């Protein structure tokens, strides 16, 4: 056991730090969605071109074939430099890497990893959230194409995406989990309508509704075999649940650091309960950092955590919501008098963590039955 950097890790950290000293755009302050996405795209390209992105992904597709622990170093350094977090694509890359044919991987992974092309995840529907397998969007074979009809919702980044990894029903005659297939659908076409949704914090339209009406996708864009959509979706969501994939740890640590600085700057202005709230948020964020270190180290043995991702997702959720609550506590009355209060935004945004990627209740169902071995209810 050694939490220190190995020589190769130390070398990487030093190189990254030196690069960041000259290339750090800083965190975006309040901006419109368009500006925000433009800056994110620039940051992605910049990280990728400098060789600091896709560290643990195959070199063949633009990655670096490094152990996943290098991602921890990247996240760590980005956070302590006050740089934007790395773009979170890991779960999509993982889903495609595990399930797609070589041809599909060669066509799509390089653009996804380099950030030349942007992607969204079209799983959820108005009547199929937790019960995802009951989704009704259909993909019907028509010559060399499939024709898509249906309605997706909560699709993050749908309005900026070039591609959608879409889950649709291709066979209505088999049990619901077996009739689904996945596709890489081009978003820029006549049969697709976007309806942005305003988020709870009032500012961003991070997600939207997507309506498909005779949209088309070439059959060659199917990811995995026909009927394999459910398995691919589960690979994606299980990785979406691992904090190590997301670079979130660093974001939480940064928020805690900012809260600490606020309190330190004016020690007399904060009550002991506010101080305690920040101290506890620090403990939580530190726990998650160390937990991610442990999980990623375990992966050095090729361990696939499978349902273990649900444990990580719950821990991550508790941390984000503890940090969000601490921000609200420190802000005090200002959070209710100033609609643009940063703490208010952090707090409101944190509510989503227990819903997206599968709600906390769904994660607990998985832990109970698949990890603890309790009988199905």
């Amino acid at each position: 056991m050694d939490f220190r950097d190995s020589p190769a890790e130390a070398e990487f950290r030093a190189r990254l730090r030196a690069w960041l000293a000259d290339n750090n755009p800083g965190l975006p302050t309040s901006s419109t969605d368009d500006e925000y996405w433009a800056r994110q795209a620039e940051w992605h390209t910049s990280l990728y071109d400098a060789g600091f992105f896709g560290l643990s992904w195959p070199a063949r597709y633009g990655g670096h074939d490094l152990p996943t622990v290098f991602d921890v170093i990247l996240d760590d350094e980005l956070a302590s430099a006050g740089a934007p977090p790395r773009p979170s694509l890991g779960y999509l890359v993982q889903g495609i890497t595990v399930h797609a044919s070589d041809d599909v991987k060669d066509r799509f992974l390089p653009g996804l990893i380099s950030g030349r092309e942007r992607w969204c995840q079209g799983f959820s529907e108005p009547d199929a959230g937790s019960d995802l397998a009951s989704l009704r969007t259909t993909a019907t074979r028509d010559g060399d194409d499939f024709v898509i009809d249906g309605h997706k919702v909560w699709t993050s980044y749908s309005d900026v995406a070039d591609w959608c990894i879409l889950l649709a029903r291709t066979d209505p005659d088999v049990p619901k989990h077996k009739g689904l297939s996945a596709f890489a659908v081009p978003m820029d076409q006549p049969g697709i309508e976007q309806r942005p949704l305003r988020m709870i914090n009032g500012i961003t339209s991070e997600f939207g509704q997507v309506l498909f009406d005779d949209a088309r996708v070439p059959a060659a864009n199917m990811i995995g075999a026909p009927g394999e959509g459910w398995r691919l979706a589960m690979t994606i969501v299980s990785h979406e649940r691992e904090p190590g994939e997301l670079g979130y740890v660093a974001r939480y640590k940064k928020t805690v650091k900012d809260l600490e600085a606020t309190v330190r700057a004016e020690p007399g202005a904060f009550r002991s309960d506010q101080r305690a709230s920040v101290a506890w948020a620090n403990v939580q964020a530190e726990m998650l950092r160390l937990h991610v270190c442990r999980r990623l180290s375990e992966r050095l043995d090729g361990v696939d955590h499978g349902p273990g991702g649900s444990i990580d997702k719950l821990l991550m959720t508790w941390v984000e919501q503890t940090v969000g609550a601490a921000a609200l506590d420190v802000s005090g009355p200002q959070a209710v008098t100033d609609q643009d209060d940063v703490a208010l935004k952090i707090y409101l945004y944190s509510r989503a963590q227990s819903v997206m990627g599968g709600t906390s209740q769904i994660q607990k169902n998985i832990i109970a039955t698949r990890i603890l071995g309790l009988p199905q209810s």
Partner: protein
Amino acid sequence: MDTRDTAEQAELRRSARQLARELGPSTVADLDDAARAKRLAGAVRDAGWLSLRDDGGDGAPLASGVEAAIVADALGGAVADVAFAGPVLAADLARRAGVPAGDGPVVGFASSLLDAAVVPGSVTTATIHAVDSGGELDAAYVLVPEGSDHRLGQVRIDGAHGAPSDGSDLTRVVHTIQPGASVELVPDQDRGITRDDLARWAALGLAVTSADLVGVMRGVLDVTVAYAVERRQYGVPVGSFQAVQHLLADARCLMEGSVSVALHASWAVDNLAPQEACMAGQVAKAYCARAARTVCETAIQVHGGIGNTWECSVHVYLRRALLSSQWFGDDGEQLCQLERARLGAVDGLS
């Protein structure tokens, strides 16, 4: 960075858990089986676990904080009624003072992190506690201030001033030493105990008590999940009810988070700068102490009425968790320390 056990650590973890399972109490009634407890104590001694922090020859301990934590975790998991952390912490302190290892007295200190272990002058002015040092203890170490450092003092435990007391924990003994007990400097000390020594020693204390809590959580969860599968109501196992499942899922997550922080704290003891090692211990202890209490309370709830009886073993875990939480300071204490270090001290506010 690689947080996995080395091959030796994995082997120690396996053998420690096996020994604790085989010789630890399987029922509450087993706690009265003196012959079994004696076999357990003998096995722990023979395995060399009490001397993990003795001088390895060059002033460094025989084994790292990680090994000590691995054993503490195993013993906690089996609610093993054997002295371990007390003697190991005493040996660590004695080594730092340059006192030759032997069958000497064992250290004790009260609930707060360090202060209460400090004895001004040569007479204790506050009640101090020697925790987990076995039943037959005739002296305990205390810290005697000397400039900005300390020396090791020894306080006699006799009928007049100190005696074993019945604490909450049914698996470990606490000796309470009353004010007025006299303190003598331990002879044969080569050197004083510096502030850095003390910080590392406290880090070890925080790491092993956190590891003990992790073990307790694992043990009580195993017992409780097994019960939830077996116990039937409405014709089905109670573990099939979602309300019960979610309680247990939460508990499992709290345990996993605790494993992660406790591992780091145990590694930090010998590998980070003294103050950082101490801080890693404070983070771990704050998290594990809160988690352990919730997990043990959950276990009682899931057991229903039985969980509130003396015969049901879950209270043995809770009681052990309460002592391990207080020893070296509970979550509130750790948060205060962290707050002061990270947010600065505020007059009139703690």
